[in-house]
Every structure is written in structure tokens, then in C-alpha cells.
């Protein structure tokens, strides 16, 4: 069942939102069985950007601000089939949540709902005013130079300078004037990450952002993402197929099964995580089991490489080299 470590109890009677909560806008998600009497809107006290210094432990304390993301009873059906059958999820400001699930389980669907891209979902969701999305594909406008892609939707000289800084942060300094079509896959994905970060989002939504990258670039992107999250402190929802990636990066891991979050728990491994950590292996086994992969299957998949579980489910191929990056700072 859903174990939630951070969320306050669900607000009773909050079924419909008629007015956008300030400062957190409500993703326009109409309630399906609309009650005859409109229920009052529940203003979710979301904090934008997250506290600048507060670490995870501090946020957990009693006086912590409300969740940045608050999802209640979100449902989505496609052709009568409920892909999301009532999702409840809270993400605290600055918290990093990884969402796992089999292919087709509805992870992208949930992410798109939170990004405000799905007008047909029902339920209630509150997100920070400023969100940013990194899609599975880089999605850079091919007719716009890299810097202007990063800047897309922002105005002013200051934003321009920040965009250049963000590009440098992801290691793309000097590529400002390049056309996206001339970037390599990893470079394009990093540019997409820069585009998300330059917005200083209160919520960063990542949909398998590293799925198409090679193992080495992936390792580099992991540490880059960790650094950037430490610096910018957004709430993060990372959709991934890769169990190891989830455990390495996230404060919390959730598993989506049959339209519900069948598992949602903290990763109690501290800052520097290593795959050799026994806690790591335990959690991975748990997660894999939750995903329907037995230990035997997992080790069978990696049998040629010393029986170590691949840690990868779904359509992605196991990433061998990623293992060596486990303890990377």
C-alpha cells in the first residue's frame, strides 16, 4: 500500500478546484463525477523554488512548508481503461522523487498531467507556479540556436546571461550559437536540462531524460543532475526505467503498478550512495520485486557478468558501466 513519509493527511472533501490557488496554480484537472455542490477550493500552500539551504532533514521537521506537489485521486482513462486509477502523491519542496514502473504503466501520463499537458485527466493536483519539463527526447526547436532554445519563453538581458551560465553548467559553454541539429544526442539532452534549470523551477519533471544516452554520458548526467539539484533545490519527479538510477539519485522512490502507487518510500542511504552498500541491494531487490522481477530473473539477466542484477526493467538495456559510477560524488 501507499506509504507516505512526508505528506500531511489528505484534505477531506477536496474534490474539486474552482479557482487557482495562489501562488500555486492548480493544474486544470476537472473532477469527473462532479458533485452537485461545488466544493471549496483548497489553497495548497506550495512554496516555489524550495528553501535555499534547508536540507532534507530540516524540511522534514515540524515547521516544514506544505508540499510543492500535491496530487489527490488523479485518474486518467484511455478508451475506458484506467491507466491511472487514483494517484495520491506529495512531493516536498526540494525533494527528489523517482517514479518507477513497467513500460506502459502510466508514468509519462502522470508526468504530463503534472506538466499541465493533459486536460482530460480528473482529480486534483497542485503544482508550483514555475515548473519545467525535460522530455525523453531533447525537444529543441531545430530552427532556433541552442542559447535561444534554452531561453525559450524567457525575456530580458538577465535571463540571457543566466541561460549562458546554465549552458556552461551542463558543459555546453561555447555551443550557444550552434544549431540543435549539430549537437550530439547527449549534448542535446544536456541543453534540454539547461533549458529546464534556467527557469529555476519549483518543480522539475524529468521523463526518462537519460534513456537514450550511453552509459558513460549517463553517469556524467547523473552527477550533473545531482549537483544542479543541490544548487537549485527544485522538487523533482524523475520517471525512469532504471532501478539503480532511481536509488542513486532520489530521496524517495515510488512504484506505479496498475494505476496506483504500489510502493512509495524513502531511500535511507544518505548522501554518498554506493551499489556495494547492503542497503542499496536490499532496496533494489524490493523495488525489482515490486516491479514483478524476481531475484532469479534479475540475476539471470546479468548472468554473464557475475550474477549481479542488471537493475534495469522495461525496454531499456541494462547499463553495465553505470555500476561503476555508484559511489561517484
Amino acid at each position, binding site marked *: 500500500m501507499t506509504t507516505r513519509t512526508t505528506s500531511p493527511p489528505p484534505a477531506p472533501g477536496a474534490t474539486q478546484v474552482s479557482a487557482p490557488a495562489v501562488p500555486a496554480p492548480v493544474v486544470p484537472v476537472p473532477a469527473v463525477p462532479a458533485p452537485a455542490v461545488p466544493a471549496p477550493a483548497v489553497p495548497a500552500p506550495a512554496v516555489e523554488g524550495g528553501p535555499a539551504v534547508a536540507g532534507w532533514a530540516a524540511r522534514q521537521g515540524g515547521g516544514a512548508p506544505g508540499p510543492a506537489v500535491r496530487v489527490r485521486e488523479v485518474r486518467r482513462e484511455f478508451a475506458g481503461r484506467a491507466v491511472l486509477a487514483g494517484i495520491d502523491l506529495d512531493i516536498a519542496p526540494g525533494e527528489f522523487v523517482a517514479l518507477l514502473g513497467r513500460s506502459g504503466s502510466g508514468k509519462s501520463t502522470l508526468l504530463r498531467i503534472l*506538466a*499541465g*499537458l493533459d486536460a482530460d485527466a480528473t482529480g486534483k493536483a497542485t503544482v508550483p507556479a514555475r*515548473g*519545467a*519539463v525535460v*522530455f525523453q*527526447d531533447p*525537444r529543441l*526547436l*531545430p*530552427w*532556433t540556436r541552442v542559447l535561444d532554445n534554452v531561453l*525559450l*519563453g*524567457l525575456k530580458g538581458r538577465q535571463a540571457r546571461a543566466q541561460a549562458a551560465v546554465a549552458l556552461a553548467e551542463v558543459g555546453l559553454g561555447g555551443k550557444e550559437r*550552434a*544549431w*540543435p*541539429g*549539430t549537437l550530439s544526442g547527449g549534448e542535446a539532452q544536456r541543453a534540454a536540462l539547461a*533549458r529546464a534549470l534556467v*527557469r529555476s523551477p519549483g518543480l522539475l519533471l524529468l521523463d526518462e531524460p537519460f534513456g537514450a544516452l550511453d552509459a558513460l554520458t549517463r553517469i556524467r548526467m547523473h552527477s550533473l543532475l545531482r549537483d544542479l539539484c543541490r544548487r537549485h533545490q527544485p522538487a523533482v519527479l524523475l520517471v525512469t526505467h532504471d532501478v539503480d538510477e532511481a536509488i542513486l539519485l532520489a530521496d524517495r522512490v515510488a512504484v506505479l503498478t496498475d494505476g496506483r502507487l504500489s510502493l512509495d518510500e524513502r531511500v535511507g542511504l544518505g548522501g554518498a550512495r554506493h551499489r556495494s552498500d547492503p542497503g542499496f541491494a536490499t532496496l533494489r531487490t524490493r523495488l525489482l520485486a515490486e516491479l514483478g522481477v524476481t531475484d532469479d530473473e534479475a540475476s539471470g539477466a546479468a548472468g554473464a557478468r557475475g550474477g549481479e542484477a542488471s537493475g534495469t526493467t522495461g525496454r531499456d538495456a541494462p547499463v553495465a558501466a553505470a555500476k561503476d559510477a555508484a559511489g561517484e560524488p
Partner: protein
Amino acid sequence: MTSLLLESPGGAGTAGTVGATRALGPVPETPEAAGPGSVPVALADPDRPRRRPVPKWLRRLLGPVLLVSFWQVGSSAGLIQADILAGPWTVLHTGYTLAADGTLGHNLVISLRRVALGLTIGVLAALVLSLVAGLFQIGEDLVDAPVQILRAVPILGLVPLAILWFGIGEQVKIFLVALGTAFPVYINTFAAIRGVDGRFVELARTVRLGRLGLIRRVVLPGALPGFLVGLRFAFTISWLVLVVSEQINASSGIGYLMDQARTFGQTDVIVVGLAVYGVLGLLSDALVRLLERRALAWRRGLEAS
């Protein structure tokens, strides 16, 4: 579009690490050269004197030059009567005379003006209509169906009606050119707008571009290649429509010049007119190409990678 013709810096066919052998047919005698079942690869002999290749443009010129030569010879020998087709030399001479006394320039300017006006009006109208139809559902409902129906009507079939509406002044020609050019521009631009990748539209929403920003940053640049394709068609069609409408009813313009020449049997003048149309067609095509090169620089980046 891009041809994959790779050449090593040293010129074509430089021997690689395999080592050059002249052996083409039989398996080389040297026993260590190949195991059983191996086949020699034909490679060029590095010592062979290399011929300098004839430039491509020169080779391509050969056919036209031959054709004109035959034409000239045929005319000189009396095989081609002057009242059927004047010889190339006569045509050149007539062209020079017409240019020198200002007849050609005067009529050319008039024709150019008609095309320029017609094109401008047609392209602008088509742009507006395609934007309205492409961006708004109600616009599509109102605009697209009528346009698709009208498109089926051959534009030159409208000439009698256009003469009834506008008389035989400048307006008819401009109207016909505008109408003829509007369709290809509309159809290609509308399709291009509708073809803009929905993922980019989603992106625009996530970065909060707003409607105007979406149009300016995503829809228009995304539809530009399609628009340029339409523009190219429009240029071609504009000359076509102009030729016909100038020959049917006009008192000036290149087409009028040609029609006059017909009544006097001056085939040389007619050929001069044809040549002028041809050159104008080539020039306008080059213009669109230039536009494409400038506007679609990002594509070159794609191709270069």
C-alpha cells in the same frame, strides 16, 4: 538530397591499406595474398596517370550547344523555314534590336510589374488565409473547404469571367496572377502549419510561451519550409498565368509582343519572348533558392552534421 560521394583527399581511388593490385580477374598467384574463398578487390593502380576530369558544367553545356548548332545549321541550310522558326542568329539579332530600341525593356517592365503585384497580393492573401485556417478551427471550417473546392477549377478557365469583371486593363492580369499564385501558397502553408510537430507545441506550453509566442517561435518557423515550397510553385505559376493572359488580351507586355509578332509571322520575336520568359523563370527560381538558403540555415546545419 545530399549525395554521399566521398573522396579521399588525394583524389578518387587512392589505394587504401589493402594494397593496390592490378589483379581484376584471376586470384593473385602469390600464395600468402589470399586464403581459400577470398576474392580480390579491384583497386586503382596508384602509378596510373590520372586524367583531369572535364568540369560538370562544361559537360552539361554540351547538349544545349549541340541542339543550337543543329538549329542554326538547319536554318542556314533552309531546312527550317524562317516563318516556322527563325534561326538562332536571327533571334539574337532581333533580341538585340528590340532591346536597343527600348521595346523589350518597356514591355518587360510592364510584365514584371504585373507579376510582382499579382504575386504580392496572391502570396499575402494566401498567407493570411492559411494562418487563419491553420491556427483556428473555425478558420479551417470557414476557409479550407471553399479553397479546396475552388482549387479544382483550372485557373485559366476563369479568364472569360475575369475579363467580364475587370475589362481588359491591368486588373485582369494582376487578378489572375494573384489567384493563380494564392492556391499553391495556401495549400502548402496550411499543410505545413498543420504538420508542425505537436511535441513542439507541448514544449511551448511547458515553457509558457503564450499564443503569440507559440505562433512566432514554433508555428511560423516550423511552417516556413512548406511556405517556401508553395512560393516556388507560385513563381512558376505566375509566369504561366501571365503569358496566357497577356496573349489573350493586352496592349503591352512580353506576351503582347509575342502575340503581335504572331499576326505578322515574326517567329524571331516570338522566340525572343520565350527566351525572356525562360530567363525570368530561372531568375525567380534562383531568388526562391536564395530565400531558402537564408531562411533555412538551420537545415544546412542538420545536413552538415
